């Protein structure tokens, strides 16, 4: 078992004929993901990835023709909100938006519409997810994974890879690794994913990678204390970040009032019984200490 995506995933890629879309779609296909359709308005009837994937003008048509049940969005920020709404209107149940730099007010609108219509949105500004040896949707390098009992959820991109690599190197494999995105307004938060891992029978332990900004880690800690009985380890990036500055991610900012610090998140997680690592490389050992592997 795994969460969100698996061998039944029939993936659609919005923006498949763009540079990023084509590059990562090829990598997903090579990982074994079943990509059933691409969408690029005006290129309907053509095919992509050396003739392996049919291209449609609209998501509605792609879904009707191919039964796609998930979509991965690579279109530029100015068009990403419309792409997400289009996928939701066509009743695609899982929308993964990789695109970075989507304005927050657009995301306010989009995330509300998608949530109300029962569409699961991951991202935007996220690396997507991999259910190891089943399906990869997004841009996480496929070769850093090994299959195993740990679920991982993260707000970050390359930091996720760092932690996954450290785990794989230490012989600790993963069920699913999910990057939920670094923006202030995202579709799916820590708690949603933690809940899925908590209910997934094959996931025996959970790793959570947070960073400064917002209160999502603190809320997740409260959820963990209340609901999660599986061993957990965490890492919070940004202990050295100065207040009031945006650290790359639009969401990574400590308010001038001092909310959102790494320390506050660390304390909340530790109080909830989560082991918090000083370095990503310490995570496998913390999980071993908790009896995993």
């Amino acid at each position, binding site marked *: 078992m795994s969460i969100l995506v698996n061998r039944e995933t029939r993936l659609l890629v919005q923006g498949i004929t763009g540079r990023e879309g084509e*590059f*990562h779609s090829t990598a997903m296909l090579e990982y074994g993901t079943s990509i059933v359709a691409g969408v690029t308005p005006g290129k309907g009837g053509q095919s992509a990835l050396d003739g392996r994937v049919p291209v449609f003008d609209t998501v509605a048509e792609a879904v009707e023709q191919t039964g796609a049940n998930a979509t991965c969005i690579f279109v530029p920020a*100015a068009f990403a909100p419309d792409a997400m709404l289009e996928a939701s209107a066509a009743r695609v149940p899982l929308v993964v938006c990789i695109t970075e*730099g*989507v*304005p*927050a*007010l*657009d995301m*306010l*609108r989009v*995330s*509300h*519409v998608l949530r109300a219509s029962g569409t699961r949105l991951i991202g935007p500004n996220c*690396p997507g997810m991999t259910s190891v040896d089943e399906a990869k949707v997004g*841009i996480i*390098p496929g070769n*850093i994974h090994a299959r195993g009992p740990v679920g991982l959820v993260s*707000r*970050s*991109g*390359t*930091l996720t*890879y*760092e932690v996954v*690599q450290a785990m794989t190197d230490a012989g600790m494999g993963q069920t699913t690794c999910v990057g939920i995105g*670094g*923006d*202030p*307004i995202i579709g799916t938060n820590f708690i949603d994913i933690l809940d899925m891992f908590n209910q997934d029978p094959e996931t025996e332990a959970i790793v959570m*990678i947070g*960073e*400064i900004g*917002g*209160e*999502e880690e603190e*809320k997740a800690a409260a959820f963990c204390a209340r609901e999660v009985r599986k061993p957990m380890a965490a*890492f919070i*990036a*940004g*202990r*050295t*970040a*100065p207040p009031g*500055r*945006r*650290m*790359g*991610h*639009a*969401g*990574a900012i400590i308010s*001038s*009032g*001092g909310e959102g610090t*790494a320390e506050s998140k660390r304390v909340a997680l530790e109080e909830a019984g989560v082991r918090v690592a*000083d*370095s*990503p*490389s310490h995570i496998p050992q913390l999980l071993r200490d908790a009896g995993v592997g």
Partner: protein
Amino acid sequence: MKLQEYRSKEILARHGVPLLSGQTATTPEEARAAAADLGGAVVIKAQVLVGGRGKAGGVKLASSPDEAEQAAREIIGLDIKGTTVKTVLVAPAADIAHEYYLGLILDRSSKAITIIASAEGGVEIEETAKTNPDAILSLPLHPLIGLQEHEVRRVAFVLGLPADLRKDFATVLRGLYAAFIESDADLAEVNPLVVTDDGRLLALDAKIVLDDSALSRHPDLEAMRDLNEEEPSEIAAREAGISFIKLDGSIGCMVNGAGLAMTTMDLVKLAGGEPANFLDIGGGAKQDKVTAAFKIILDDPNVKAILINIFGGITRGDEVARGIVEARAALTRDVPMVVRIVGTNSEEAKPILAEANLITAESLDDAAAKAVAAAGAAA
């Protein structure tokens, strides 16, 4: 992006918020002329983006052009939390009967634009949140239909505004909301919003913070950027498409990805060093970006060593390695460099780095330790 008070007021005025706009001045003489032009008592206010200008002596009353000139002389050039005052705003003074706080924030937690209001204005809202949280009304707006009349009424009633000012208050709140939406703000606040002795409702100070992700669709607002208040290195980084924040340490960092960049800083600190910067070079880092990043890092004379940490995904390790070697050749200043490249094509990167005599590391912990050691040796 934070906007200066006078810029924020410009935007609010466009949306009908009543305020005393005044004039900016960059010399005491200009301030004098502005005061003479406005007539009557004026207030001279330092235009800086950092908070606490009042306590730092950056706000002064003046009852004549002479006094205005004198006040401006004292304020211009003043150092407020590291920022040197270049511009002051000269605005008509108001006789204040009561001060309120009124703000709109993009609240990530409730995923809603939220009205924050308090009858205790004039102090920072974070302060009120600590001392008297019950005095703050926090009202999240529906994300799809926005500000409604009943919300405007409710805020007015909760603030206890005089009945005859409720209509004017509606103008203020609607204007603030329109300004927020139309400029893609993260924050828009009026503090204080005052009732004057003669019964007028006025925005005496204003602050707007814009959503950086939306700036590309607001060239008019982008043009309001105050380059005077930014580090020259940060301006250069933005122009090169690099995410960069200057810090005070000695170890320069060059990383791909924001989370990993923060983590790299954290591990430098954990290894006993101090990071000189946050730097996210972005995905698919090409040579020109590496060159620009080196220049930005090395322009900081405190930098004694550089730690380069690249996790190849989109980015290919061998390309980055070549970029580093070539960019280094053109550097004007040589400092020790510790390079860690993992992920896509990292094996191919190794001989390139070895040939160039760069210090390499396998793990991030190791890389941080080596960088701290190198900086210590260079100091």
